[in-house]
């Protein structure tokens, strides 16, 4: 599949997307509500055969974002699913590790560092913070000043 066909195939999930942003010829951002991210990611991984690269959690003040980055290696295109989590009090999203084993670690990490719940994650445990790191302290959330472990 070439890049033109790749972009055309996104029409199949257009109902799940808010918009598609194209920053360069090879970088696409598929913005969606967090509720639809599972279906969109499933389409990109299973139907389009893209490789899951990693995920980025962002504290954007009005909402949390979870960016799932995928690579379409045949065309060198990076497609990023930008899921918006509007419930800041209780941020949660359906885990894509259910169908991508390679996403297990990064979802555990985003849970550790940003405090986002990944519903139905096959193995949700602490990954990256120390055993004695206090519960409920999420270092990547935006604060007025940095906190250090004393």
């Amino acid at each position, binding site marked *: 599949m070439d890049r033109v066909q790749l972009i055309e195939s996104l029409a199949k999930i257009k109902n799940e997307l808010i918009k598609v942003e194209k920053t360069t010829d090879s970088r696409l951002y598929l913005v969606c509500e967090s509720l639809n991210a599972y279906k969109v990611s499933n389409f990109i991984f299973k139907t389009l055969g893209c490789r899951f690269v990693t995920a980025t959690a962002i504290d954007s003040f009005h909402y949390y974002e979870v*960016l799932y980055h995928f690579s379409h290696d045949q065309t060198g295109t990076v497609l990023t699913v930008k899921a918006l989590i509007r419930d800041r009090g209780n941020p949660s999203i359906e885990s894509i590790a259910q169908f*991508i084993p*390679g996403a297990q670690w990064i979802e555990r990490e985003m849970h550790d560092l940003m405090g986002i719940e990944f519903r139905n994650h096959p193995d949700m445990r602490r*990954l990256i913070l120390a055993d004695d790191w206090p519960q409920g302290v999420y270092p*990547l959330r935006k604060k007025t000043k940095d906190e250090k472990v004393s």
Partner: protein
Amino acid sequence: MEFFQLTIDGEIVTDIDVRLSYNHRGMEKIAESLQFDQIPFLVSRICGICSASHPLAYVQAVEELAGITPPDRALYVRTIINELERIHSHILWVGLAGHFIGYDTVFMWAWKYREPVLDLLEEITGNRNNYGNVKVGGCREDVPDEIKPKVIAELDKIATKMEMLTKAVLDDPVLHARLKGVGVLKKQDAINYCVTGPTARASGIGIDVRKDDPYAAYGLLDWKVITQTEGDVFAKAVVRLLEIFESIKMVKQAFAKLPKGPVAIEVKEIPAGEGCGHAEAPRGETFHYVRSDGGNRPVRHKMRAPSYVNVPSFKASCLGGNIADVTITLAAVDPCYSCTERLAVVNDRSGKILHDYESLLKLSREKTEKIKKEML
């Protein structure tokens, strides 16, 4: 550095888990307090031996965000430094793999032959590792044209030695018996675990960022992606050995085609936006995502090292295997050296700790000895 825990039943591995966190320095948060031009020095130290690939992926993300195109000469210089790093990193791996299975002469030879590459990098960039050679907009330093004959001469010497070593590995029946069929990562598992680099290419997945989404000067050079299909430790060794020759070829071509001109453009400010940069490190794809709000520092900087996706594939490659093969199977994805030091093996039924790194290493080397004796 990680802490691996394996559960065994008799001699067969039934479960494997890892405790990370020992190496977690909180770099993504630190990056939010640094300025864009300070970050290459930070990310160079994510992993000491991918220290050219991480800053390159990062500056590419920022250059994409800001719509900056570095000058042509910079693209070639970046390629030269990155390929020299790949050469010494792969040679390091060959040495370590030899050590794990009891071929200590290979370890000593390999690490001796990587020294001249480190000397060259020190002469060009000022350091054996952590080169600090890239910045947003180009390179911080130029490669002097006068060094070209020295680099070519050294690489020719290394090529001769590596040909000898490669032939020794490919022809050795003991190595075939020891490493073939060991630690197999099947193609579908490789896809599900989203592995990259030689780990993927040894399982028949021909992905390589340098070909798939060319950056620096890779799209302008003549070279090939090396793949194997068996997915075992032997296949991974073959991929890395053959890649050394491709890298040597690329460095020579890059020097031959090196255009005149500046090695950087001046960058005044980074506008608001987001960018993704990736580079093919010796271990696989390094991926950086940067978001800016137009200020001096990133709002968010995501860094992903290749080992983050390659190491978890041990679930697929170690389970059902023999404990004598654990050290070499873990080492085959080429994690950071210190990672494989922390190992504990626990009995399935009693929960008692049976082995540590020292005794697992001993088991691995004893297995090689046994194979040698059987072949005599």
